[in-house]
């Protein structure tokens, strides 16, 4: 199935943010904004919910902590107890650096993989580009056009894009979600 998108390209992020705010005030549903860098205040302007990525980070960290503690305790107390300078087999202070590192490792790798999966960035994924210049110096405001979108709405979108300073407005026909 092919999706139609209406794309407005801006070269000034302030104009783009103001535009997005106005469009949302006028009850137009902005599908997405593509920008070469993270723009401050954009989440707010788009009315996005807070990311839940950090919650997964906590869960991965806690899991990593538990795994590391369980594994080390098992190895040093029952599987292969060794005498290190007369210290007890369960030497918690010696475990702490490893617990810390493993927690951070699990949280970071887990969060990265989750982020990549949720954004659909797994290997073998072929993505059609919305516009190559959005990786350089252009900011794109994207509307999705489906069967229900009336011609009136499309012209309103175009007007809004035009009036808020979009330099180029075009329709794109992409195979999948870009």
């Amino acid at each position: 199935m092919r999706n139609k998108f209406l794309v407005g390209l801006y070269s000034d992020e302030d104009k783009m943010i103001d535009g997005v705010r106005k469009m949302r005030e006028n009850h137009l549903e902005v599908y997405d904004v593509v920008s070469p860098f993270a723009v401050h205040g954009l989440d707010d302007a788009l009315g996005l919910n807070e990311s839940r990525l950090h919650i997964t980070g906590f869960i991965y960290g806690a899991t990593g902590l538990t795994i590391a503690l369980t594994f080390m305790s098992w190895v040093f107390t029952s599987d292969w107890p060794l005498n290190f300078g007369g210290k007890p087999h369960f030497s918690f202070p010696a475990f702490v650096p490893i617990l810390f590192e493993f927690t951070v490792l699990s949280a970071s790798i887990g969060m990265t993989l989750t982020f990549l999966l949720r954004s659909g960035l797994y290997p073998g994924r072929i993505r059609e580009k919305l516009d190559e210049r959005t990786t350089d110096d252009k900011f794109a405001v994207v509307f999705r056009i489906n069967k229900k979108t009336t011609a009136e709405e499309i012209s309103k979108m175009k007007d809004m894009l035009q009036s808020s300073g979009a330099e180029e407005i075009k329709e794109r026909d992409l195979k999948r979600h870009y």
Partner: protein
Amino acid sequence: MNETFNFTSRLKTISMVLMLIGAAALAGGFVVYSGDEINRVWANLLLDSVFFLGIGMGSAFFIAAVYLAWGGFSVVFKRVPEAISQWMPVAAVILLLVLIAGHGNLYEWTHAEEVEHDPILKGKTAYLNLPFFFIRFAFFLGALVTCTILLRKTSLKEDTMMAGDTTMYKRSLVIASVFIPFFAVYILVTAWDWLMSLDPHWYSTMYGWYSFASFWVTSIAVITLFTIFLKKKGYLKEVNVNHLHNLGIMMFAFSIFWTYVTFCQFMLIWYANIPEETIYFQHRYGHYKPLFYGIFVLNFVLPFLLLMSRDAKRNMNRLILVACIIIIGHFTDFYLMIMPATVGDKNGFGFLEIGLPCLYIGLLLYVVFSSLAKANLVPKNHPFLQESIHNSL
């Protein structure tokens, strides 16, 4: 933008009452604990003087560090750390008096006849001797206090300048860059002089970082409390949830930093297991076991869990709670540095330990509120003022 803090008579009364309670506790301490237990009074005086002087020094460091980092976020509430740093000269004088009067009771290395028969202490006399001890104190604290007063003066002068004039900002940068090296050296020296030399046979290279981390996170907690107090009283309208979020991040981050250096010190000594090093923790483990574990809960576990989420850092009441936990926790931390070395098993938690901090809190409140009342609460011509107002996280 023009708003000045009104040091109401109610606040004045509160600080006066606190001072009176503290003074009564101090006098009571000298009466009750005269004789053998007099050390307990001196140890408490040292504890409170060092702890509260650290708050002043940490606030001055906050201003200087933000200047040098070209930081903008704190400009709208900059007068708060500035006012707290004005407490530093007062606290320095108090500590000087305590050290002059109490060094014989507190520090073993000041007793000439004991040092004579102790080869380790004899070897350290080049550094640990009274004249040099006070020269260090006067030289470094003199420099820090001078820089702090100059920073305050330039900041106040900036308000009277024309808009867009950055002369005073540049001068502040110079003063801050003089302040930082002195602070960097002296914060380590303070730890050796005031705290580590209570156990003169023992030494640790992590000790300076350990006490600096404590000073620093306590100062941030105090700055947060004062800022929220002013905000709740209806002042500082430009301070919004983003600025508090920044302070929350700093409290969270430096609580972890404290844990990191504290644990580093502990683990190296625990691992190596050399008797002359482990003796420090031996003193702090047996009799003081609840506190030894307690500070990890108060200074790490609770701030870590309570401040972890973004919403928590943007919630004033949560910040107040965590700031109080951090202040109490680090007070306990200093208690644990000082008490085992000075009073040993004869420590306690009585009217002196509760009352004496009131004296310092009363003085601190009085100095901070009167300095806040002297100037506009928001700096007028700071070049980063707009950046700070539009700060968002």
